[in-house]
């Protein structure tokens, strides 16, 4: 016997005569309502309880089915991933066009999408940091308008957060100056711990 075996049940009857007049449809519905409100007629019928137990057990097994299938399947091939990526249009992320001033009268600019990529790249200068979502707040299309960069970052567990945030902020600032003429007045960093994904720690300066 292994953990997947269902322990033997008393004879499982699923017809109304086994269910004290109730139908499997009723029980199925009752199960989906999480057995609330409690129906005494069903709960006090042995036949119904046996059937409900079986349905609950089935539900438990069902929850494992997808992951069992996924684990048993062949892993995703690199070629397939590339095919998916090549079907993607990049323009959906271009965002606003940020002007670059040119004495020679050219109409020059860089897209928000490209700049967000630059902000993400700053993580290379800060081991232990992984940048998530990034937003440029302010009127980026107006030269000189004050801009705040808001960035989410994941930090390796145990890394000193204040130090890392400072370095990341500096790295972002340096890169933005190389590629844009944005007047960045603030860089807000929201830190999320890598190892405990459901407990974000907020630290903005």
């Amino acid at each position, binding site marked *: 016997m292994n953990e997947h075996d269902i322990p033997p049940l008393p004879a499982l009857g699923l017809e109304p005569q086994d269910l004290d007049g109730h139908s499997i449809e009723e029980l*199925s519905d009752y199960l989906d309502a999480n057995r609330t409100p409690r129906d005494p007629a069903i709960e006090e019928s042995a036949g119904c309880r046996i059937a409900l137990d079986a349905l609950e057990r089935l539900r438990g097994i069902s929850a494992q089915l997808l992951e069992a299938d996924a684990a048993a399947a062949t892993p995703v091939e690199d070629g397939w991933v590339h095919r998916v990526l090549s079907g993607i249009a990049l323009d959906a992320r271009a965002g606003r066009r940020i002007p670059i001033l040119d004495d020679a009268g050219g109409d020059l600019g860089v897209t928000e999408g490209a700049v967000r990529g630059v902000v993400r790249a700053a993580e290379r200068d800060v081991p232990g940091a992984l940048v998530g979502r990034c937003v440029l707040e302010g009127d980026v299309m107006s030269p000189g308008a004050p801009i705040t960069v808001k960035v989410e970052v994941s930090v390796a567990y145990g890394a000193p957060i204040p130090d890392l945030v400072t370095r990341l902020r500096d790295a972002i600032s340096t890169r933005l100056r190389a590629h844009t003429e944005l007047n960045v007045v603030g860089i807000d960093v929201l830190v*999320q711990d890598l190892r405990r994904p459901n407990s974000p720690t907020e630290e903005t300066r």
Partner: protein
Amino acid sequence: MDRTERSSDPLAGADDRIVAGRAADGDTAAFGTLVRRFAPTMRAYAARILPGTLEVDDVVQDAFITAWAQLPDLDDPGRVRGWLLRITSRKAIDRLRASRPHADVTEIDAPAPARESPSRRAEARAGVAALGEALGRLPAQQRECWVLRELGGYSYDDIAQELDLSVSTVRGQLARARKHILVEMEQWR
């Protein structure tokens, strides 16, 4: 996650929320991470709705292309897994509808061909494998209702909408599916 993936993909160990957030911003590498992470589950899910491996690959690919376009609209990037599965079932059902010209599809009874490998069939007493087998033998509409409910977490109303059925039909199909599965699994003992 195997070792090669970890060393070549710095995002491989990162939380869904961070990876999806980056992908929403346009980072194609992060999107690649999502593809590798969730494609197996999405394929498994699509395969339970649709018979035939070739269609499954197309469905999941379509799902990812839609996901890329709609990712910026996902309010909580942490919920990307369930969101991707939703898109997958929608695409799979679109395929089903396209391949069924007739309106009345109550009991299309062509069972799916047995997909489990011989070794898995030999272990049919194990609960999950038995369930897989039983699912494969269900009439199509029962299976679809069941999959959307149990694997997709859809409400009756959502299932009704997706499959173009009345809620009472959904209720009935679901009950019959569960009954058939239980009976089949009993027979494996």
